[in-house]
């Protein structure tokens, strides 16, 4: 079963890496625009709330965030190993738990937006 489990972990990692590679540069740019004080119209409350309240908006946000979190968690697990931390069980539990908590928070907050 070890092989089958690895395939799922690796599959989620690859999916998250692809999604974050495509979406995050635009996302970071939007945060940059917010930071310099030129918040785009679509990110004003009315518009962004409408987007996050729609089914399609919720689905996009949930897929992007949850896959990205899994990607980051798996990569961070390997980074810990590369930096000389040899307690893989502890590290794996911690990073995957963080990803799970983030995913649950995403689902919860999206559920509240209507």
């Amino acid at each position, binding site marked *: 079963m070890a092989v089958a489990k690895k395939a799922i972990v690796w599959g989620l990692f*690859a999916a*998250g*890496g*692809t999604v*974050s*590679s*495509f*979406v*995050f*540069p*635009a*996302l*970071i*740019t*939007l*945060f*940059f*625009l*917010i*930071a*310099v*004080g030129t*918040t*785009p*119209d*679509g*990110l004003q*409350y*009315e*518009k*962004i*709330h409408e*987007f*996050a309240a729609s089914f399609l908006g919720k689905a996009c*946000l949930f897929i992007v*965030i949850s896959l*990205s*979190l899994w*990607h*980051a*968690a798996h*990569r*961070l697990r*390997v*980074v810990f190993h*590369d*930096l*000389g931390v*040899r307690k893989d069980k502890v590290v794996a539990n911690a990073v995957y738990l*963080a990803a799970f908590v*983030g995913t649950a*928070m*995403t689902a919860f*907050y*999206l559920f*509240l*937006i209507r």
Partner: protein
Amino acid sequence: MSRQPYIRPMSKTTWYMRNGRYKVYMLREMTCLLVGFYSFLVIFGLAALSSAERWNAFLASQQNAAMIAFHGFALIYFLIYQTFAWFELAPKAMPLQIGEKKLSDSYIVIAHYIVWAVLSAFIFWLAGVF
């Protein structure tokens, strides 16, 4: 008389500093910190969508010089070590074969850049940047 096996001295914590390729590998792996950071930033944003006041407070909390500098750095770092690195590796991770012929790597990489440009433009349009 048995001889001691030779074990090459190697640091467990700084081994990647010996070689340029290993350094790039570590720089690439470190992008996971940015992915995690921005994922949670979005989650805090979603939490703030509960009311207009909270959302505006969230926006205001993001508007400072430190965040401008961080986002600027993060964007360049992310593009080089995540987005472009991921696109360059895509044909190696999933080579495409059509009939007898293997599709040239450059086509797969270029296709990624095109999809990325279109998708980014769509996100900017959706966000009302233009």
